[in-house]
């Protein structure tokens, strides 16, 4: 596209691409179709924005999510009307649940055909209304530039999320005047960044007098940015308090730090969940008290005062009543907290803290993540541990699918930095990891990108391996193949009397041959003794690898809080250390 004036005449299709370029979009993930052909024409005649052709629109959104989450930028998607838009819905919902900034441009039938049941017509704004942060149907060319720039602003500010812009085909052809992004005085939409100072003072006062404090942090810290993660590390160091995090928050605080007590929640560590239950001051930063975190609500951390920092006021007091609610951006609030802590001449109760840490170390000593190792069959936990040991010194990004392998990855892969961990937390979308790793690898071409997968999940979006091959993206798909939808099988074992209805992965493909069919590389490993060599081989190959790691089919993911139970009612595996006095009287009955 030539011309460099601030405002100039161009077609709607050209405006779409120009707006992406002006918003610093380097890659757009998409799939062409009748209703977006003018935009594809505009893509053809420029080289500012690179289009990545996926194999299914769901894959386009997940790839954009991986791209967004690993860079902190907005992920961009372009799909056609009708089936293009409906196929994107799973990805959009996933992005909404996990607060990922996405702008998704959908083609639409020409305005005069809208509502006529035209070919490949669907009510895109109607269908995507509940699964986006906001959406637009652009009916006038005059509105298009403003809407496109506004979409990026809304997607990336406040609590991030997906925004859909539905552009009818006649609007793509229409000519209008394009304008560059500027500040839009959107009166109704003003996310609050600074926290209320009085509330932050109250929070610091509570924290200063805590006897059994605990930081509980989530994906909001990662979304807030690198600065928020650095500030969190500083505050934890200043206070010396223990910290746990949700699945989405992993990496905001380094797992190697002794203050880190592991992930919490349904498959969290014993020490994290017991500390949640027994703490007296809970400092929740950028997390939302999801049911996978709280377990039984009326038994959730009964004795604690709760400080809740969140940019989204509707997250506060939704599930759990906060004693000190602070609406604001994590980085802004953490900065204020640190300043007040430093200037406040605060002397925490050292003796109580010492006792609290002794108690936590006691829980730690039960080794709730322990499992029985084997020389004959690869234990899935062992596979993740080896993967971690052999990759931890590299520049590595991890994505996952959903299920047991995801939880084992969260438990056994130590994340030291934010934006290195891409997983579907809120929606729990099987098939997320492979396309997400495509997006991550594009954003970080020199890095090692591994999708820790299950054999059932990965088959849901396997076609995206073709995308990886086309663009020479050397992603590593590390499949923990246990021949079952493992988490479904585990629930059936624990909750449905061992009736394994439809959870056996019948008629699996030969993954090595499948890889070859896609012109990728296949590796199979079934013996613990061969594992290290096979992982090293996987890392060394400079093309997409499908690694079929055959693991123990019967292994369950522990610890586990069955849904609707309290934090001190965990089920533990049989390999942990039994220490009777490490757990409360109430907990003993259940554990």
């Amino acid at each position, binding site marked *: 596209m030539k011309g460099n004036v601030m405002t100039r005449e161009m077609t709607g299709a050209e405006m779409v691409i120009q707006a992406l370029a002006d918003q610093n979009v380097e890659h757009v993930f998409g799939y062409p179709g009748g209703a977006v052909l003018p935009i594809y024409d505009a893509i053809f005649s420029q080289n500012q924005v690179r289009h990545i052709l996926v194999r299914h629109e769901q894959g386009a959104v997940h790839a954009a999510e991986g791209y967004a989450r690993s860079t902190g930028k907005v992920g961009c998607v372009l799909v056609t009307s009708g089936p293009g838009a409906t196929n994107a819905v799973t990805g959009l919902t996933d992005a909404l649940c996990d607060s990922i900034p996405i702008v998704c441009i959908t083609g639409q039938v020409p305005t005069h055909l809208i509502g006529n049941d035209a070919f490949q017509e669907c009510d895109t704004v109607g269908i995507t*209304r509940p699964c986006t942060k906001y959406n637009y149907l652009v009916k006038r060319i005059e509105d298009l530039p403003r809407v496109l720039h506004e979409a990026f602003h*809304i997607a990336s500010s406040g609590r991030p999320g997906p925004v859909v812009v539905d552009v009818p085909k006649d609007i793509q052809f229409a000519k209008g005047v394009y304008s560059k992004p500027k500040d839009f005085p959107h009166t*109704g939409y003003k996310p609050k960044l600074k926290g209320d100072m009085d509330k932050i003072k109250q929070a610091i006062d509570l924290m200063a007098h805590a006897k059994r404090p605990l930081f509980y942090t989530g994906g909001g810290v990662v979304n807030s940015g690198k600065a928020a993660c650095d500030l969190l590390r500083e505050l934890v160091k200043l206070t010396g308090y223990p910290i746990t995090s949700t699945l989405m928050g992993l990496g905001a605080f380094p797992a190697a730090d002794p203050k880190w007590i592991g992930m919490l929640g349904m498959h969290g560590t014993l020490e994290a969940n017991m500390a949640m239950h027994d703490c007296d001051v809970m400092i929740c930063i950028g997390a939302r008290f999801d049911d996978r975190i709280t377990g039984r609500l009326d038994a959730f951390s009964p004795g604690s005062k709760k400080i809740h920092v969140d940019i989204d006021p509707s997250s506060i007091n939704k599930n759990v009543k906060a004693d000190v609610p602070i609406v604001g951006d994590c980085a802004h609030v953490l900065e204020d907290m640190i300043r007040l802590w430093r200037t406040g001449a605060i002397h925490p109760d050292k003796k109580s803290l010492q006792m609290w840490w002794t108690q936590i170390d006691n829980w730690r000593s039960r080794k709730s993540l322990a499992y029985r190792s084997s020389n004959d069959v690869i234990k899935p936990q062992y596979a993740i541990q080896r993967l971690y040991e052999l990759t931890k010194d590299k520049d590595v990004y991890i994505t996952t699918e959903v299920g047991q392998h995801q939880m084992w990855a969260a438990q056994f892969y130590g994340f030291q930095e934010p934006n290195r961990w891409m997983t579907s937390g809120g929606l729990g979308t099987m098939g997320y990891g492979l396309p997400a790793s495509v997006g991550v690898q594009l954003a970080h071409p020199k890095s090692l990108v591994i999708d820790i997968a299950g054999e059932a999940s990965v088959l849901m979006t396997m076609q995206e391996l073709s995308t990886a091959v086309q663009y020479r993206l050397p992603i590593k798909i590390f499949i923990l193949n246990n021949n079952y939808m493992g988490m479904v099988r585990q629930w059936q074992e624990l*909750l449905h009397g061992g009736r394994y209805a439809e959870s056996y992965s019948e008629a699996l493909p030969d993954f090595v041959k499948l890889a070859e069919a896609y012109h990728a590389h296949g590796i199979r490993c079934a013996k613990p003794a061969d594992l290290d060599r096979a992982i090293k081989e996987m890392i060394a190959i400079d093309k997409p690898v499908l690694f079929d790691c055959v693991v123990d089919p019967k292994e369950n993911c522990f610890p586990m809080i069955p849904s*609707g139970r309290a934090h001190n009612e965990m089920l533990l595996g049989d390999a942990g250390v039994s220490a009777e006095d490490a757990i409360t009287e109430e907990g003993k009955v259940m554990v």
Partner: protein
Amino acid sequence: MNAPSTTHYPAAPTAQKLETHTLSVLVDNEPGVLARVIGLFAGRGYNIESLTVSETEHRQHLSLITIVTTGTPMVIEQIKHQLDRLVPVHHVVDMTLAGNAIERELAMVKVKGKGDNRVEALRLADAFRARVIDATTESFVFEITGATDKIEQFINLMLPLGLVEVARTGIAAIMRGPEGM
């Protein structure tokens, strides 16, 4: 492995006391804005008892939506935050919590009858300050304005006198005093 034999699934939460609140929601009058608000209520399982919508500030294209809803105090607080989070929503004011709001509703009530019933209907309408806006030899249409309970009472009185049908606007609410929203 030591799973107890009973089910691990949780029991449903116990019911809490419900409250009724009137919310005034100022929104951009753009296509789909009402669908967003209603979709929010439907999608999250909130109740709508009454809903009134009209553009109130033409120049700025702002509409006022008045919603009467029921829920536990925690749910009502959630509803307000969820509404406030919608991009085209400018303000959400809880008129019930604000405490000094006036709420009015308009109803048109059709009554059919002859003889004593017809006279009685007219007398009651007079007492309730309802106006006759249509009449035939065997029917009236009354227009009545007031708080919801007054309208309910009037309709109940008309029931034995030959009530045919009622059309109601739903509640509009505004604060007393000089201050705006």
